[in-house]
Structure formats: C-alpha cells, structure tokens
C-alpha cells in the first residue's frame, strides 16, 4: 500500500467540499439549501469517515514499518523567496488524524440531533467541517508557515463556532476574545496555557457539541500537538524545556483550583480540561513525549464523552428551567438526574472515573505515566502533580454528585421562595420521559465513546502491562521521533514500580472522591432541610477559620483567580485608553494643526479683505502714514 502515502495530501481536502457547498448554497439559494437540511449531515459524516479509514490505514502502515513521508510543492515561484506547501506524514500525524476524525464523527452524529431544532443547523455543519478540514490540515502540514496558516484557520473556525449564537452578547464577546488570544498565542507559540487560558471557559458560549469538539478534544490538543512537533527544536535548549514544564505545572494547579467553584457545568469541565492540558505540557517539558501524547488521546476521548453527556443534561434541563445558559447549565439547579437520564448518567460516570484515574479506564494509564515520570524530573513538581490528581478526582466527583445525586434542586428552589412556579415540576416528569426516548439516537455516540474509553487501555495500555514498554503500540509508533528521549524513561518502569505508583495514584484519586462525598453530604442534607444558609450557621465558632479558608478558596476560584479581572483592567482598559489617547491626539493635534492652518489663513484672508476694503479715506491715511515714515527716515539719514 505504498500509494496511500502518496495520496495522503488529500486528507485535509476530503471534508472541504461540504462547507464550500453549504456556504454557496446558503448565499445563493438559501431556501432550497435549507429545505435539504438534514440531508447535508450525511455526506458530512461520510466524508469524515473516509478520512478516518484512510488515516487508520496510514497508521497501520506506520506501525508496520514506521517511516516518514514528506512531499512538497512550491507555492510561489520567485528567485529570491519561495514558500512551500506539502504534507508530512509520520506517526504523530496519523495518530492525531485518527483522533480528530473519530471525535469529529461522533460529535457530528451527536450534533445532528442536538442541533436539529436550531435555525443555524446548516451553518453549524459547514463550520464543523471547515474546522475538521483545518485541523487535518494542521496535523499534516510540513513546515511552520503551513502550520501557522492552518492554525489561524482553526482559530477562525473556533471564532465562528463560539460566536455561533451571535445574538447572545456573551457569545459575541467570547468569540472575539478567543480569536485575539489565539492571535497572541501565534506569536507566543502556545495558548490555553497559564497566561493565555482566559478564552477557554468563555468559549463555552458555543453550542455544546462545539465545546466537546474544540475545547476538549481537538483544538486545545492542537496546541499540544504543536509543542510536540517542535519538541526536537526545544529539546536542545533546557531553558525552554524547564519553562514549558513550569507553565505546565502552573496550569495544572490553576485549572484544578479554578474548577472547584464553577457553577456552570461546562465551565467546570473547561477548567478541568485546562488542568489536564497542563499535565500534558508538564509531560512534554519533562521530555516524556510519549506519555504526553498518550494522555492527550485518552483525555480527548474522556473529555469528549463528558462534554457530550453534559450537552445531553443541558438539553434535558432546558425543558425545565428555561433556555438561558445561566440556568440550564447551572449545577445548582441540577441534582438527582440519575433517575431521569440513566444512560447519560452512566456515560458521565465513566468519563468522570476515567478522568479521575480509576484503573480500568483510559486516563488512568496515561496520567499514571505522567505522574511517575514527574518523580524523576523534580520532586516539587511531582508533589504538586500528585496532589492535583487528588483535586481532580475531587472536583470531578463534585460535579458528578451535584448533577446526578440527591434531588432535583429546582424543586427546592420553589420552596425557598425564588420565583419558579410549580408548573415546572409537573412539566418535568412528562417531558423527561419523552426526552429520554428522543435522545436515544443522540446517545449512540455517547455509548460508543464510552466503549472507546474502555477499549483504549486494553489496546494500548493493556499491551503495555503484558509485554512491557517496548512493544506497546504507541511507543512503537512514536519511536522514530522520540529516540532522543525515551531511553531514560524506559528502563524505569518495571512492573513492581508500576504497581506501587498505580496504587498510590489510585488511592489519591479515591481520597479525592471520598472527600467529595464527604463534603457533598452536608450540602445535600442542608438542601433537604430547605435551608442552605442554616448549615453554615450551625457549624459553630470552631469552624469559622476553616470556613474562611474555604471561602477564600471559593472566592479565588469563583472569580477565576482574578486573572480575568487583571486582564480586563490592564489590557482591555489599557488598549481602550491608548485608543482614546491616540484618537484625541489625532483629532486635536494632527488634525488640529491642519484646521489651525485653515482657520489662520481664513483670518488672514478676512483681514486682508478688510484692509483692502476699497475705502478712499483708509488708503489716504495709509499713504500719509507712509509718507510720514519716509520723511522721518530721510530726516534721520540726512542729518
């Protein structure tokens, strides 16, 4: 199958016709295109599946005889400068393209149902396939300029997708923020990491499948991909490697702490994404390339699962609390959903467990690897990473418990005097049943993703356990590119060490889960007592200090670590101030000079007109004055 490599330039172009056709159709024949509606989803998914099969084929080839293919065309023909276009196929590319296409297909299937009542159904699909195109282009690109090009295109797609519901002002702000941050990220070379993460939670303004696609699975993964691609460059400079791991660890901690107090389910998940990305960066910075990519893949599937499940929850909540995202995504209103959406609950639970790092699920293997590698790198980082793993388990279970356990909190709100009529609660049960039936189709990708999650460790991690490091598929795939790095990490993991580490990390995760249960109980019971505030009062004076601590952490987390505030004060205000200043300068000084010249010449003209006003007496006076001056001067000169 040699030809597969030759034709692999086609990968990014296969999904491209769909957005072009839909775009042209919407512009030129809107009604006809809109009538076809659901028909468009099919070719969309079909083309993406073709790409998936193709990239599967490629990666099988890579496993059999891993080799790198590169092909280059020249783009501009000129004597002095030439830009080249081409494709570059190696194991990293094939893995990434499988990841993108599989997640993409599931998200497409899911969103066919999810978006079916939305006005912008077609627009949504056009954006999605454009996004997939540019992602595939990004992973197959062969030089930095091409990476930049597709990077910007990905940024544009995310701009469009986040701003999909353009009538919402929050979406409008969020998409602009995402684009600008992405632009800044171009020059700094990475984003969604510590200083530039601010767009990620705001980006949740888009439809939920988008959150799953972009912000969990692919787009943020692209950033990791970029660093991974450039790693051979960075590795020669230890400074940069240290910097990367430092940024990674800050992101890990920040994301985890910020995720603690999010009320919005999607934002909570977004911060958890950020924290997990931090793990990947940390791994890359430590030089354990393979662990980073492994975690990237496992996390992508788990997070996509979680997001799709949360989308399902949000859709069912919308029927009860209304269509405002502040309500339907608010976890305070959720609770006890286990009874109503059991399938979603199972899926969400699996995702949560996987993300917490509970053994048979995917993320356990990858996270464990990163954690054990971190001991080698630096103990301080390792301690932070380990404790954050516990924190991850805590907040993920916190989210899970708030959502699915207990009783539906909207219910209680009614008693506590907020304005929600009992009408809702009646409506709730009937609607829910319908919803579940309706959602069966939507749940299909969820289930598949769940299966994926379970399979992953057996295909990749499972082999690892059985045959040791050298033979597992991933490392085999990645061998050519990580020759430099992996000999030091290889010898380390014998099975004893592995078990030791594994038990430790699982126990930490369990500790986190346990804490979540512990903390959840009083909250739950207090809700049962229909008095939220009472519970804080009842605790007595001893716990005031603890409460203060909790409050402090909560406050920090709730305000997004004050980083957004800092940005809005320093950057936005700064730029606005600069704009005002330059505008003022432009108006008053530069233009002022021009207008001043105009006005002066006007006055000069007027005065000349006044002087030359053809009055004889004035001329005579002037004449006499000059004669007088002349006489005086001649008098002085003569005598």
């Amino acid at each position, binding site marked *: 199958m040699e030809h597969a490599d030759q034709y692999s330039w086609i990968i990014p172009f296969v999904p491209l016709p769909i957005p072009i056709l839909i775009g042209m159709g919407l512009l030129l024949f809107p009604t006809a295109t809109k009538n076809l509606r659901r028909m468009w989803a099919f070719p969309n998914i079909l083309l993406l599946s073709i790409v998936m099969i193709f990239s599967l084929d490629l990666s099988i080839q890579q496993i059999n005889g891993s080799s790198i293919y590169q092909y280059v065309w020249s783009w501009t023909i000129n004597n002095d400068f030439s830009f080249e276009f081409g494709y570059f196929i190696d194991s990293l590319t094939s893995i990434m393209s499988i990841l993108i296409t599989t997640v993409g297909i599931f998200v497409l299937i899911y969103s066919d149902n999810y978006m079916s009542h939305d006005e912008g159904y077609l627009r949504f699909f056009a954006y999605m396939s454009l996004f997939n195109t540019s992602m595939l282009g990004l992973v197959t690109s062969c030089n930095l300029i091409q990476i930049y090009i597709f990077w910007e295109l990905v940024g544009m797609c995310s701009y469009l997708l986040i701003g999909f519901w353009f009538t919402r002002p929050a979406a*409008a702000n969020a998409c602009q923020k995402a684009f600008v941050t992405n632009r800044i990220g171009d020059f700094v070379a990475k984003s969604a990491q510590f200083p530039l993460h601010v767009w990620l939670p705001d980006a949740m303004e888009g439809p939920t499948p988008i959150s799953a696609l972009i912000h969990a699975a692919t787009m943020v993964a692209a950033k990791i991909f970029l660093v991974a691609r450039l790693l051979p460059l960075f590795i020669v400079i230890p400074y940069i490697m240290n910097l990367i791991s430092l940024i990674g660890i800050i992101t890990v901690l920040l994301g985890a702490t910020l995720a603690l107090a999010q009320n919005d389910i999607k934002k909570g998940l977004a911060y958890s994404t950020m924290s997990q990305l931090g793990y990947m960066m940390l791994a890359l910075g430590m030089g354990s390339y393979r662990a980073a990519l492994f975690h990237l893949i496992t996390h992508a599937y788990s997070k996509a699962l979680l997001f799709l499940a949360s989308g399902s929850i949000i859709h069912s909540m919308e029927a009860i609390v209304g269509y405002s995202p502040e309500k339907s995504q608010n976890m305070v209103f959720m609770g006890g959903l286990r009874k109503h959406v059991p399938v979603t609950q199972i899926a969400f639970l699996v995702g949560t467990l996987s993300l917490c790092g509970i053994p048979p699920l995917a993320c356990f293997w990858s996270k464990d690897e990163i954690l054990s590698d971190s001991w080698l790198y630096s103990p301080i980082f390792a301690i932070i990473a380990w404790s954050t793993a516990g924190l991850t388990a805590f907040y993920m279970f916190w989210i899970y418990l708030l959502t699915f356990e207990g009783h539906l909190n909207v219910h209680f709100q009614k008693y506590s005097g907020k304005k929600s009529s009992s009408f809702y609660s009646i409506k709730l049960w009937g609607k829910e049943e319908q919803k579940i039936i309706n959602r069966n189709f939507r749940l299909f990708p969820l289930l598949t993703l769940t299966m994926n999650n379970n399979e992953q460790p057996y295909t990749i991690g499972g082999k690892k356990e059985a045959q040791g490091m050298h033979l597992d598929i991933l490392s085999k795939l990645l061998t050519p590119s990580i020759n430099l790095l992996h000999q030091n990490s290889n010898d380390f993991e014998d099975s004893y060490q592995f078990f030791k580490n594994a038990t430790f990390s699982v126990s930490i995760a369990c500790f986190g889960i346990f804490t979540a249960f512990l903390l959840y109980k009083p909250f739950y019971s207090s809700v049962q007592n229909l008095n939220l505030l009472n519970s804080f009062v009842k605790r007595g004076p001893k716990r005031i200090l603890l409460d203060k601590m909790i409050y402090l952490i909560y406050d920090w987390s709730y305000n997004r670590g004050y980083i957004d505030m800092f940005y809005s004060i320093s950057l936005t205000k700064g730029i606005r101030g600069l704009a005002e200043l330059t505008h003022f300068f432009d108006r008053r000084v530069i233009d002022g000079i021009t207008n001043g010249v105009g006005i002066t010449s006007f006055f000069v003209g007027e005065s000349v007109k006044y002087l030359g006003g053809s009055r004889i007496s004035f001329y005579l006076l002037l004449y006499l004055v000059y004669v007088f001056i002349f006489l005086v001067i001649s008098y002085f000169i003569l005598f």
Partner: protein
Amino acid sequence: VYLVFTTNYFPWLTIIVFLPISAGSLLFFLPHKGNKLIKWYTICICILEVLLTAYAFCYHFRLDDPLIQLEEDYKWINFFDFYWRLGIDGLSIGPILLTGFITTLATLEAWPVTRDSRLFHFLMLAMYSGQIGSFSSRDLLLFFIMWEFELIPVYLLLSMWGGKKRLYSATKFILYTAGGSVFLLIGVLGLGLYGSNEPTLNFETLANQSYPVALEIIFYIGFLIAFAVKSPIIPLHTWLPDTHGEAHYSTCMLLAGILLKMGAYGLVRINMELLPHAHSIFSPWLIIVGTMQIIYVASTSLGQRNLKKRIAYSSVSHMGFIIIGIGSITDTGLNGAILQIISHGFIGAALFFLAGTSYDRMRLVYLDEMGGMAVSIPKIFTMFSILSMASLALPGMSGFVAELIVFFGIITSQKYFLMPKILITFVMAIGMILTPIYSLSMSRQMFYGYKLFNAPSSYFFYSGPRELFVSISIFLPVIGIGIYPDFILSLSGEKVETILYNYFY
C-alpha cells in the same frame, strides 16, 4: 485595418485612457429618459473598458519582459519637448487592472444614486480615465498632469454627494492634495530641468541619470511629501478619515481601492526607480514611519465611533505594510508591497461597499448605535465577516500573503542589523494583534447581539442580487490571490528585479 491590429503600433493605451472620458462626455447628450439609461450606459462603458484592457494586456503584454511595453510616443508640445508618452510594465499592469475592476463594481454599486446621476456617472468615468492615465504615463510631466486631472472629479464627487459635512471634508481633501501637488510639481520640474539645456521628462532617461546626493535628497523629500499625502503616511493622513466618513460609498470604494494606491505606486515608480541613492538613505526612516503607522493608526481606529472612519483608519494602517515593504529594499519586500497594493485595493473597497450597503438599510452611522443586524441582513453579515477576516490577514486570503511576504522581506533584508529587524518584527506583530481587535469588534458591534428594529420595511430596498454579485466578485480575487499569489507576483516579479538592480550594482 488588418495590419493595424496585428502589429503593436495600434495605440491601445491611448484608447484605453481616452475611452471612458470621451464616452462619458456623451452622457450629456443622452435623451432625458430617466436614470436607468445613464446607469446602463455607464456600466456598459466600464465593462467595455475592462474587456479592452484585458484583451490588450493578454495579447500584447509579455510577462517575462521587464521593459516598457505597449509604448506610445507622440510629440505634444514642441517647444519644451513634451511628449504624450504612455507605456506599461509589470509595476503598472496590476493597478490598471485593479482600477478597471473596482471602478466597474463601484459604478454598479452607485445604482441607488439618483441625484444628478448624469454628472455623477460622468465624474466616475472621468476619474477612471485620470487614474489609468496616471498609472500608464511614462513622462514625468504627463504623470503630474494626470495626477492633478484626477483630483477634479474626486473633489466634485466628494462635495456633491455624501454626508452632512461633505463640503468641509472635500475642502480638506483638495487643500491637502493640492498642497502635496505643489511639492510634486517642484520635484517634477527639478528633475526635468536638471543637467541639460533641454528638459528631460522621459522616465527611462531619468532612471539612468544621477544627481548630487544633496539635490537627490531634496527631490526625494518633495516627492515623498506629495505621495505621503496621497498614500497616506502619518502625520499627513487626517484628510482620509474625514473624506471617507462623508463620501458616498461608491466614491469611498474608488478612494480606498485606487486613489490611495496611487501614492504607493508613485513611491515605487519615482522615488525608488528614479532616486535610488536617496531612497537607500531614507529607507530606514520609511520603515520606522511604517511600523509606527501600523500601531498608531490601528489604535486610533479603535477609538472611532463612525463605522466608515474606522474602516478608513484600518486602510491607513494597512498602508503601513506597503511603506515597510518599499523601505525594505528587498525583492521579497517590494513584491509584498505590490501585492498589498492590489490586495488592499480589493479588501478596502469591499469593506466600504459593505458598510455602505448596510448603511442603506440601517441609516445608522455610529457603531454604538448599531447591533443585532445579523438577523435582518444575514448575507451582508456573512460577506462582512469574511472580508473583515481578509482584512485582518487570515490565511487563504490575499491580505495574509501580502503581509507575510512583507514580513519576510524585512527579515531577509541585508540592509539592516538583527536587533532593529527583531524590533520591527515585534512591533508589526503587535499591529497584527491590534488588527483583529478593531476589525472584529467592528463586526461585533454591527452585527452581533440582539436588537429590535422598528424601522419600516421600506428601508430594505435595493436588496439582493446586485449587492451579492458585487461582494462575491470582490471576494473571488481576494481568495484567489490568497491561495495562488503567483497571479500577481508573476506580473511584477521581473520588474521588481530590474528596479532593485540599481541598488546592488
């Protein structure tokens, strides 16, 4: 007749220059049968002209030849050797084609103009002639005459059609440009009369002439001021936002699409080609001014409330890239500058066009009054988003390629040291971050959000295929150049090498 058409002596360029204005003067003899006849007549003339230009350039212009082609040389005024001398080369062919394209679309866009439409269309055609004339003249004095000639229709277009403060802005425009023209005239006469007893005004002869450095610098400054007003280069730019803010939008299209490019064209044609020594002295300053312009104007643009003024400032900011490209004195940079001339011609014109069409519907001038227009005018919203993406240099669009090539021009330039290069690149990068801020916030303020309009539906007149056609036909070249920039680079490549030959040997 057969002989005439097969040889190259057929006066293609003279016909191309004279056709619009002479056909336009026939407008006054057309019967008074309403505006429709006038509009169709003008559009037919424009299309004929474009086709003629395209035909002449297709069959009588060879891309691999850096010399002047389609040359014409007639003695006009005997006693001081003034010739009617036309000719095109790789540098001027792009702007001429751009002129034809944009003017045709602007005429199509001027469909809603009803007041004095006879005069309006005549002025459009006169401007067409003037612009092609100045791009194709090979004689310094002829260049000056064409340059001045083209101001008159612009002035009239500005002062008769447009917003409330149009007289103020038209006066400002004419004073600014006339002031610049004084320096141009000084430069032209100085260059022409230097050295010999007989005035030499031919570009070719002038290009081989050398001057004392001090004199060359003086000439250079004179020309620079003239072109800086037109381009515009800071701090001589303030006529532009006022003019664009008040003008009718088809005038705006012409102003942004073509008129600004005349300044940049003049910089390359005269300052670079005729005065190479002074240019290599001045080029660092040009680059500094260019980078300052990108930042300064981009941040000024953020402070604008008026939509058209904001777009106007954005075009001034993009002119900064042209100046940097010209100042870099590299093959790459100059090619980038020429590409940016063409690319911004399309993008700037398209943005003004879309601003105009949305103004037709909303009747709102200030950005903070707008909002939520995406629901009512989705197609304009789509096109506006695409073209503001093009304006902020999204890959795949022409603006990106141009800016990228200018970037490379600066980086590969051997004239400058590493540190200044890094600094300039850094500042340009800041400019490229500011660009999405202002252009995306523009589209956010216009279209995003939600707002109930109780405007009567009569505002939604003139909608439909005409505007869609115009915006798509601008969009196609933008994306075409973005994907395959050799379209333009192959036109200018040879000529650029010839120009830069003077600098290295």
